[in-house]
């Protein structure tokens, strides 16, 4: 009897020990709650688990609006995840605080990984002093979404037809938006990204035209918004809002996805909203300006927190998730940064909602695009900008003076 008890106890202890050493859980925070996205992520994780018995992977959804904030609190509370999706504008703060692990050695040691396959512009934000602090899993260009029905009603050529003729310029964009507004009373020609162009997406509203004119929000520690290129671009937008009345003005709702605006700017992840929209639609490149085509990309990367218990294992999971095969799988939702995938037919045909010809616009924009300017103090910069940008979006504003005000407010932070 005694022997049996001893045996049972030691078996139990052994089991407990082995369970502890085997059960390594990797926690990955993401901001998607989409069932389709999570299903895909879990199936990729399943491949990893098959190679690493005893490891479990848990994807934890944090709502996108508070994502960086909640992630920061997890870190501050000593409960950082092993792996996190990281938004481009949050990256510098996390990098400079030394929170992210250099996963370069693991990636480069992984067989068949081919690190150099990632495009240089896409990696720019995530490499620092020879360290690799993240791998972009979504490199998503800004595109024009248009309502084909509203273009037809106005008897206008759509942006893709104009682009094919090389006529899709900022001037044409203004002209077309005005005609669309006139032909569709009570609606607008254009809506800023997510209807948030005067608030949380104010830089997303300004950046594409400013780049098309050859300027930038800021670069090398210098505010660019009061430079002549930016002033010209924003004057044009201001005219469209207040003179032509072709852009949804501040304080109004003119949702593109409900058919209240003929065009908007967004990324391909929003294509999933289109089947319910109930109108014919398409995606086209951003209009070009005096500085030519200037695609803008938004980016998100997989990062590993240095404070985790299983950093090496986490780095291996990142390598798995961004392998050639899995990047191709993810491409149906998240545009890739791997040249081999971008150039493949598989990518062009990957999205059921978007015709191959239009997917080529996406691929071209990824290769040529530049990421939104980033900075360690982005939240402070945005907060300093916001009241000045409010002043810009008044009908009687002097655009040049207002932009000088914006730069005066943010220059000390840059």
């Amino acid at each position: 009897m005694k022997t049996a008890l001893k045996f049972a106890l030691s078996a139990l202890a052994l089991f407990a020990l082995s369970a502890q050493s085997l059960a390594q859980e990797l926690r990955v925070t993401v901001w998607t709650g989409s069932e389709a996205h999570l299903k895909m992520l879990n199936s990729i994780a399943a491949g990893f688990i098959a190679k690493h018995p005893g490891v479990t992977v848990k994807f934890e959804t944090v709502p996108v609006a508070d994502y960086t904030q909640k992630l920061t609190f997890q870190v501050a509370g000593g409960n950082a995840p092993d792996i996190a999706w990281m938004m481009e504008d949050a990256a510098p703060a996390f990098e400079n605080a030394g929170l992210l692990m250099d996963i370069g050695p693991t990636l480069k040691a992984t067989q068949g990984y081919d690190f150099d396959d990632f495009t240089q512009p896409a990696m720019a934000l995530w490499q620092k002093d020879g360290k690799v602090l993240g791998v972009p899993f979504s490199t998503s260009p800004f595109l024009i979404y248009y309502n084909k029905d509203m273009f037809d009603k106005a008897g206008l050529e759509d942006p893709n037809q104009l682009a094919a003729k090389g006529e899709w310029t900022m001037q044409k964009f203004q002209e077309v938006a005005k005609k669309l507004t006139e032909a569709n009373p009570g609606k607008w020609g254009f809506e800023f990204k997510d209807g948030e162009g005067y608030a949380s997406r104010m830089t997303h509203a300004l950046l594409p035209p400013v780049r098309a004119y050859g300027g930038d929000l800021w670069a090398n520690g210098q505010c660019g918004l009061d430079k002549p290129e930016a002033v010209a671009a924003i004057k044009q937008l201001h005219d469209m809002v207040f003179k032509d009345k072709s852009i949804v003005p501040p304080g109004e709702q003119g949702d593109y996805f409900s058919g209240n605006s003929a065009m908007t700017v967004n990324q391909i992840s929003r294509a999933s909203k289109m089947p319910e929209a109930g109108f014919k639609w398409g995606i086209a490149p951003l209009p070009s300006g005096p500085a030519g085509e200037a695609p803008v990309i938004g980016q998100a990367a997989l990062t590993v927190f240095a404070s985790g218990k299983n950093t090496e294992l986490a780095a291996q999971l990142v390598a798995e998730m961004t392998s050639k095969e899995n990047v191709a799988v993810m491409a149906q939702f998240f545009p890739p940064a791997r040249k081999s995938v971008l150039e493949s037919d598989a990518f062009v045909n990957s999205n059921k909602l978007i015709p191959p010809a239009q997917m080529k616009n996406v691929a071209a924009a990824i290769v040529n695009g530049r990421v939104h300017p980033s900075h360690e103090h982005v939240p402070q910069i945005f907060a300093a900008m916001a009241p000045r940008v409010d002043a810009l979006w008044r009908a009687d504003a002097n655009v040049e003076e207002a932009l000088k005000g914006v730069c005066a407010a943010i220059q000390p932070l840059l």
Partner: protein
Amino acid sequence: MAGTASRDNAARQPGAPWLTLKTREMLEAWLFVSPTFIGFLIFFLGPLVAIFYYSMTEWNLLSQQATFVGLRNFENALLENPDFWHVVRNSVIFALGLVPLNIALALSLALALSRPFFGVVFFRTVFFAPVVTSAIAWAIVWKFMLQGEGGAVNQMLAWIGIDGPNWLREPNWAMAAVIVTRVIKMVGLNMILYIAALQSIPRDYEEAATLEGASRWQVFRMITWPLLAPTTLVIMVLTTIGSFKVFDHIYQMTGGGPENGTLVLAFYIYQQGFKFFNVGYAAALALIMFAIVMALTLVQVMLRRRDME
């Protein structure tokens, strides 16, 4: 001596003979309150004490480094940062707009609805309903109604030939809009307090005054209003404190804009602490807000006391 001992013995319980009844009762009481009290210590008193310490540090949430900086954060807010005084000014404007409007409206409604008449319960319910409505839902609905062109408010104004402004996009109008929508939301609570107070005033006073030939206004001015003074004080204190703490409305309707026109203290603290992660500075601001509200309350109490004497 022996008598005391035997009484003590008599009070001892068989289950725990070493305890007197009094000690036992006290222990029981402590045990009963302990769950709440422990929660109070951990979740209320703890943070309250911690905030004094945090207010004297510069603490970066990301890098986890907290440096003791003494009164640096207070100096920064009170002497160096122009934003702070702008924000305090906004909070004061908000309170000055909200408190009198709220009290005047609450009192008027209470006077109209304190006497029974057919449908009085319906009207009381209508004016009280917004109080129990979710603040965020309330703010979202008003945000839509206050749109520049398509908004319901401006459409109604257009019927009578008024071209309404773009309410939430012009700094002064935005402040006015936030104040008025907040008053409509919260006035029901003060109305109920006033109704209760009015109903507790004996009718004899009023009748006596009327018999003496006092007009209705005189009755109100000389009898009702003075008798409502304690209630008015409570309402003023609570409404002022509430107006300094306003956050949800601002967060949803204006986000502190336009041009920082509605950036009030509570929202500014949130921004500093939870958007910029300046935890030390935010803690200092919170203490300053605490001091302001405390001072205002004391002043009101003193004024009232002088009035009543």
